[in-house]
């Protein structure tokens, strides 16, 4: 099964862990991305995430399907937060269960790496002296 969500409220690690739990699973790997307090040494006050939701959901589903195809993943949950986040808030959760644990690590890492390249979600960092769309400019 696949569970893809874009939410404007606190993400739930245990929900995702529970969703991917399966009697045949040999390993569950959960990646949790949280808001860092600085970017290259500059203190971050807060973040805003904006998504092109219909396409973001489809791109996340593509990642989940690719994982099921390539690593025989049993269940996959990908939840992404939007709206305003404070330091240490959870921005993304990716949970993967596989028959053998090595595959769960590889699949989960592939998922977060790919999400950061393909899913139309944008992060704006707020500093003391201004705001910046992350990764927009060189």
């Amino acid at each position, binding site marked *: 099964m696949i569970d893809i969500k874009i939410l404007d409220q606190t993400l739930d690690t245990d929900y995702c862990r529970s969703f991917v739990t399966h009697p045949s699973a040999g390993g569950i790997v959960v990646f949790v991305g949280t808001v860092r307090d600085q970017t290259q040494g500059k203190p971050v006050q807060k973040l805003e995430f*904006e998504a092109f939701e219909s396409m973001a959901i*489809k791109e996340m589903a593509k990642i989940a399907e690719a994982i099921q195809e390539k690593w025989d993943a049993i269940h996959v949950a990908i939840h992404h937060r939007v709206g305003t986040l404070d330091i240490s808030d959870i921005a993304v959760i990716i949970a993967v269960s596989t028959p053998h644990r090595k595959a769960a690590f590889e699949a989960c890492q592939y998922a977060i790496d790919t*999400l950061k390249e393909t*899913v139309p979600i944008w992060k704006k960092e707020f500093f003391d002296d201004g705001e910046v769309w992350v990764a927009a400019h060189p």
Partner: protein
Amino acid sequence: MKIKLVAYGVARDIINQKTIDFELSGSTVSDLRQALFAQYPEFEKLNSMRFAVNDMYKEEDELIQAEDEVILIPPVSGG
């Protein structure tokens, strides 16, 4: 032809609005890129700009139809 553009993130800041009607003389994504960058030179400074129609990324040589709503996708930064 006239198409509708929808902008997210820094692309919305550059065109200064979420949606605009855009007059496109060519017919491909590449044509749109050139016309858009000519009108808004700030796009040149971005790390990348992609375009999507019907929730799918479009390659440079793909065609744009008159009724299409084209989404402007600047460098993504989720996760």
